[in-house]
């Protein structure tokens, strides 16, 4: 089905021009063969208007009934039948109309029947073919649109799910800390409620597809780090080294937090002492590069297994956004585990 009013209008204009040319041509040919102008005009108008109606019928039929495979035979017979019908009706009308006015017309009409039939059948055939091609193309376009829509929907759902899976554990542990603070240090409890609210609001407000500046993302990350520091006390320390030139660079919202969360978990759960998380940013080949370093114990955990859910979801997100799998990498050196994420910067 035609998808935009513009394309319908354009199609209608082309269609009418074609038929006008056809009518004109018909009249000229009839006059050439010796018919007076009035008779030629009536002949041309009647036969072509009728043919036009037949074409509309074919087009409308095809609009709701597109042939598949063997059904093309049916379409062929439909065209044949319509051509015969058209010929008979045209002949009948013209005979009644022009026959009494011009002697010899009936004879001429009779002799021109095969030619009229040939032209009518060919034209109807052409119209059918054009319609089939047109509607097929429309259908394909629609399918593609639907497919793209479905993909977009599933992508959004997937992103939403990925985001959800990250939250509950953190949320409940934070609430537990607040619960503990209420009894002993109510002022701090109040502060933490505020931080947690700001953090959660940030998660809810931001769309996964939205881009933010590194500066914004780091501010948001700081909220998260402050909460974690209350939870883990002296065991957690962070150091952020943000190159000034990288601050205005953009990255997908909420990308950094799961990476840091993963580093914190990895660091805290793999070592018993103090955990220092080091975050640094730089520009490299039109990519924003962010490195997150956490300590780990190479003897007890192989880094491959220690990456956990956090990084898998980041990897998946980066793939959905950029269709690349090389943007997230990890390396283990000595007691340090480094997660490196690269964000392409479109110039």
């Amino acid at each position, binding site marked *: 089905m035609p998808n935009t009013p513009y394309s319908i209008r354009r199609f209608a204009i082309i269609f009418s021009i074609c038929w006008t040319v056809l009518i004109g041509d018909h009249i000229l040919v009839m006059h050439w063969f010796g018919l007076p102008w009035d008779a030629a005009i009536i002949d041309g108008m009647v036969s072509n208007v009728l043919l036009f109606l037949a074409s509309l019928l074919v087009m409308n039929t095809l609009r709701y009934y597109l042939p598949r495979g063997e059904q093309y035979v049916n379409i062929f017979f439909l065209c044949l039948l319509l051509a015969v019908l058209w010929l008979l009706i045209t002949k009948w009308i013209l005979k009644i109309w022009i026959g009494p006015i011009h002697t010899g017309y009936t004879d001429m009409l009779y002799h021109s029947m095969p030619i009229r039939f040939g032209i009518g059948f060919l034209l109807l055939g052409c119209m059918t073919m054009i319609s089939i091609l047109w509607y097929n193309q429309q259908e394909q376009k629609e399918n593609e649109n639907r497919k793209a829509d479905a993909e977009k929907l599933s992508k959004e759902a997937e992103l939403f799910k990925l985001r959800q899976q990250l939250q509950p554990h953190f949320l409940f*542990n934070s609430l537990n800390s607040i619960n503990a603070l209420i009894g002993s240090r109510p002022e701090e409890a109040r502060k933490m409620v505020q931080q947690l609210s700001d953090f959660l609001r940030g998660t809810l407000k931001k769309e996964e597809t939205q881009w933010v500046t590194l500066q914004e993302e780091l501010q948001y990350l700081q909220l998260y780090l402050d909460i974690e520091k209350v*939870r*883990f006390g002296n065991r957690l320390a962070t150091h952020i080294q943000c190159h000034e030139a990288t601050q205005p660079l953009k990255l997908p919202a909420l990308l950094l937090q799961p990476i840091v969360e993963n580093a914190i978990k990895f660091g805290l759960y*793999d070592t018993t002492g103090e955990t220092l998380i080091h975050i640094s940013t730089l520009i490299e080949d039109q990519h924003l590069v962010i490195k997150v370093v956490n300590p780990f114990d190479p003897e007890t955990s192989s880094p491959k297994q220690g990456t956990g859910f956090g990084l898998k979801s980041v990897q998946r997100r980066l793939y959905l956004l950029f269709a690349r799998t090389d943007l997230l990498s990890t390396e283990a050196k000595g007691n340090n585990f480094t997660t490196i994420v690269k964000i392409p910067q479109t110039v």
Partner: protein
Amino acid sequence: MKVVIIDDEPLARSIVREYLQKHPQIEIMQECNDGFEGLKAIQQHQPDLIFLDIQMPKINGFEMLELIEQPPAVIFATAFDEFAIKAFEAHAIDYLLKPFNQERFDKAINKFTEQKTVTAEKATRELLETASQSPSQNNRIVVKNGSKIKIIPVHEVQYLEAADDYVKVHTGEGYFLKNKTMNHFEQTLDGQQFVRSHRSYIVNVQQITRIDPYEKDNHVAILRSGIKVPVSRTGYVRLREVLGL
């Protein structure tokens, strides 16, 4: 009555301490930051009850319990969601989902006081059996070597060998004893990596370099380290299946 609190978050420990003030009959022997400390404290104080978080540094709550000969009664205090904890519900004295209030906490304590006559040890053993089947536990084996605790990533395990009530876990550094059954390991380890090649052996297929015929119907698997592991007739069928031969 003696308790030990084991949780890696200081505030999480302090809330348990606060709620315990209402129960003067209970004495807090020690608060521990991680499983290692917890293990030492349990051996030292022999508590009647422990409050235990699951997710903790180095070794998790379940792994710590596994290393104790006679585990005390356990009340879990964790942020794990209900679904994940459901499996352990039947066996633990109780589980507290963080955040919890005084009322809920008192209920757990009462449950413990009532159930005390029932052997807590049995309950905890059953709990561990259930817990070890959760997939997160299956990528490493925690063993005690003298007074030291050793965490063995499963890919470093060459093969397992039955030895009376124990299982010998063979690695490049020698073997470690684990108080478990062969059936337990057969069920919990990844079946695509570990194959029961013999009634008394489970072999890591990634370590196998060759399988040779041996005597009449039997085979022998030769590992990268040169060690030969017996393969029975049914074991050979299983191995071929996993290796896609």
